[in-house]
Structures are given as C-alpha cells and as structure tokens.
C-alpha cells in the first residue's frame, strides 16, 4: 500500500526542481498533446529523448521512476491486447475466434508506448514539484478564467487538500487493514465477489475517519480565519527565470522535431 509512488514528491535541488511550477505544468500538458500527435515510431525519438534528458537533469533514479509503472502494468498490457485483437486489417495469426492483425499490433504498441511515456512524464512532474507549488502553479494558470466564473482558488485549495491527504489516507488504510487482519480478516484470497465483500470492514472505518478528518480540517481552517481566495497574498511569489525560458526553447525545438516527423 505504502509503496505507491505516483504523486509522491522527492525533495531535491536539481534544475528540474528549481523550474517554475507553471513551466513544468505547461510543458507537461504540451508533452502529453505531443504524445498523441505523433503518428509513427520515429517520432517517438523526440519525447523519449526529452524524458531521458529531463530524468538525468532531475537526479531521480531511473529505477525508482520505472517502479511507478508497476501498478499500471496491467492497464498497459490490457490496452495492448485489446488494440491487437480489435483492430481490423491484415491477419498475422489466428487465436481461436480472435484475429491478431498487423495494424492491431502496431496500434497496440503505439498505445502502450504512449501510456508508458505519459505515466513517466507526469510522474516526473509530481516527483520534482511539491504539491504546494504544483497547486500554486495551477491556481495562477487558471486565474485568467476567474472572469468567466471559474473558482480558481477554490479548485486549487481542493487539490492541495486532496493531495495532502493521499499519504494520510494510505497510512490509515494500512492501519485499519492490519487491525482487521489481526482479527483474522483476509484481503488477499477468494473470488472477486468475496473480495469485494471483505472490503467492508476496511471501507466503513476508512470513510468514518475521512469524514472526521474533513470536519476537523474545516474547523481548523475556520479557526485561522480562512475565507477563500479574496485578497489572499502569498509567502512565495512565483517567478519565471532565465532557466524557464531556456526550458521552453528546448521543449519547443523537441516538439517541433516531433511534429515534423509526422510528415516523414
């Protein structure tokens, strides 16, 4: 349970850590769009190169980054298989009623690569950006939409709180799970229906404690006179530096290369 690495922040002082969160968010978004724009395998050299460069600069161990893929391997394989079987085209191999096609395989491989790059890219963002600066960045990026009624501050605050409580809730889950296991509960064996039933002793206490925590938090915030984003100043103002501009230029070059590869 505790070993989930997605969304975890590893403090550090690398170039990637020091980038403005807005830069990182915008580039991650653009990177995601780029991944889905590429239409041939050569094009993926660009995002792969970009990710390798960013990982090296961030000082995060490659093994740790790849470990983040582990819980999602099932989804990646499923996507690959579904695409391989469901796409019509030149049949390579027949497996009972299912046809594996050339187009399917290449489509499946595409999707798998995209997913893997997507996960690595986004985890790199959260691994190098503290949740607070991440939501600060989102808040600033969303603030232009305030004029059309988008509650940017409230959204950011909600995200901060949600992120803040992920580890707490995981810890709580771990604790309750162990307490019930000490009473002979079994969360690991049995068929799907039984397993779902076995989760009741875990979920009920978990929800109760989550509500209690929410209540306490609301009270604590009110006690410190929190009343939304109006006129709220911040301790750390976000600032773009030369480093951010350089990063944008590098990314634009790479993305340009990727887009150009579409026409090869």
């Amino acid at each position, binding site marked *: 349970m*505790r*070993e989930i*690495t997605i969304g*975890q922040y*590893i403090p550090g002082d690398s170039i990637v850590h020091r980038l403005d969160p807005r830069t990182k968010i915008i580039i991650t978004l653009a990177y995601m769009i780029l991944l889905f724009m590429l239409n041939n395998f050569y094009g993926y050299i660009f995002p792969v190169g970009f990710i390798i460069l960013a990982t090296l600069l961030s000082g995060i*161990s490659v*093994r*740790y980054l790849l*470990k983040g893929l582990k819980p999602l391997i099932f989804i990646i394989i499923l996507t690959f298989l579904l695409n391989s079987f469901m796409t019509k085209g030149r049949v390579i191999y027949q497996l009972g009623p299912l046809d594996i096609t050339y187009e399917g395989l290449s489509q499946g491989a595409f999707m798998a690569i995209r997913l893997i790059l997507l996960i690595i890219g986004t985890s790199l963002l959260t691994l190098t950006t503290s949740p607070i600066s991440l939501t600060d960045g989102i808040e600033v990026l969303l603030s232009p939409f305030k004029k059309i009624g988008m509650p940017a501050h409230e959204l950011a605050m909600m995200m901060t709180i949600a992120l803040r409580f992920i580890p707490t809730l995981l810890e709580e889950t771990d*604790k*309750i799970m*162990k*307490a*019930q*296991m*000490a*009473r*002979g*509960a*079994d969360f690991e064996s049995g068929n799907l229906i039984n397993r779902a039933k076995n989760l*009741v*002793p875990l979920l*009920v*206490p978990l929800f*109760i*404690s989550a509500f209690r925590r929410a209540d306490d938090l609301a009270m604590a915030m009110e006690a410190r006179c929190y009343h939304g984003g109006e006129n709220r100043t911040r301790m750390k103002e976000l600032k773009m530096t030369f480093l951010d501009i350089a990063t944008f230029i590098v990314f634009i070059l790479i993305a340009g290369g990727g887009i150009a590869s579409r026409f090869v």
Partner: protein
Amino acid sequence: MSIDVKNVTHVYMPNTPFESIAIKDINWTVKDGEFWGLIGHTGSGKSTLIQHLNGLLKPTSGEILINDINIHSKGVSLKSIRQKVGLVFQYPEHQLFEETIERDVAFGPKNMGLAEEEVAKRVKEALDLVGLSYEEVKDKSPFELSGGQMRRVAIAGVLAMKPEILILDEPTAGLDPRGRDEILEEIVTLKQKQKLTVILVSHSMEDVAKLVDKLAVMYRGQIVSQGTPREIFQDYEGLVEKGLGIPQITELMIKLKERGKNISTDILTVDEARAEITKHIRRKGLA
C-alpha cells in the same frame, strides 16, 4: 506461549529514496505468563516491533519464533498465529465497522471459522471480560457508545478470539483518567483470569511501573535496556536522554536523595514512598 525475537531488522520501503530502518537487530524473549511493558519515544519502533509478533510485518532479516517455531517458515498459517497472538492497535475503536456491537465482536471468531453457537458464546464472554453487559449493548451500534466504551468493544473483538498472548498498543491513549484506570484494571484481571501473556506498549511511566513485571526500553529502533521496572527506573538520566522519564514518585525520591536525605530511591508507588519517608522521619526523630 513464548515469543523469541532473534536479530530482527525491519526496513520500510527498501531501495527507494524513502528507505528507513525502523528497527535494528532486536533480540527479545517473552516467556509464557510474563507481563511486559514496552516503552520508548514516539518513532522509536515500538509499533513496528509488535506488528512483527503476529506476522503482520515480515522481518527484513532475522526471525520471530513462537513456541520455538519460526512463524514465517513454510506450513505455518499466519491466521492461526494471529488468533494466538491478539494485537490491539492504538485507537482500536477506529476499526469498528459493523451495525451492531454483537456482530463486530463476532468478526474475529467468525473469521476463525467457528460454529455459530461457539461464536455467540465467545462474544458474550468477551464483552463480560471487558465489563460490558452483553444484553444491554449487543444490539446497539458501536457508534452510539462513548470513546472508552468503544475501546472496550474493540478490545473484546480481539479477546473473543481467545488469544494466549495479548499485545496492547497504548490502550489508554486519549482516555480520561477514570477510563484509563478502568481499562488498566481490566487488563490486570484479564491477565490473571485467562493466564495471558501480556505486552503493554505505553507512554506512561506510572502505568508500567504499577503493572508490569518486566520492561523493555526502545530507542531509535533498538531495545537499549530490559529488566524489572525497578532496575530500569534507576537510570533516570539515561531515560530522560531518550525522551522518556521515570514515575513522578521515583523522581521525587531521587530529588530528595540529591538534597542529602538518606533514603532509598528504589520506589515505584506512592505507598512505598510514604513508607520510606515515614521510616526516614522516624529515624531522624530518634537520632
């Protein structure tokens, strides 16, 4: 039942940047029928250690022997270990989930696969043991009870499995003085009635001084000293250095001695202190 902890080390999240050694090379023997206290500062590894005793955590290295059998060897069912080694977590009332108290207490015995009559019998016994009236509370929701009562229900939930070793992780945390005394008293009676081996994790030096036969002190993931409370509490400075203390009454006696009074500091309770001080005054009066 006896527990042998041999060279046990546990590392959380190994091979990640968050790797941390929770306990290091622990050696500890709990013999049948003993009443142990386990004290240590927050984060000293107490909770990690006790979760090894019923196989909830697997040691990174070292072994846990229960009745001389390694609990992680092949063919040992962890479920039966967990039945024999009952573990009551901190704030156990946070684990309650059933609609009625009867069903919640029955959760453990049911998981053991006992027949319904046996389960019902055990639920009744367990609730009796913690001083709750079965007839009165069985159909109530656990959430209607006060904090102290909820905690009893949770403890009953573990007792209903009839463990031979009972481990309690700070059973009195967050209770008022009366609730605290009641729970501790019940633990003592339980121990005598059921001939249990008990391990009590506590922050309160007064509680352990009053109750336990033996005491283990944990500091930064290691057991740094073990012995009777009298032996342990003689090392006032060492304990303070480890973020712990000694019972107030023992501290008082040590302070008196520092001021030149010729009295023994081997005192754990107020009654003992009164006797010792009276003796001292009489002696002085005669001189």
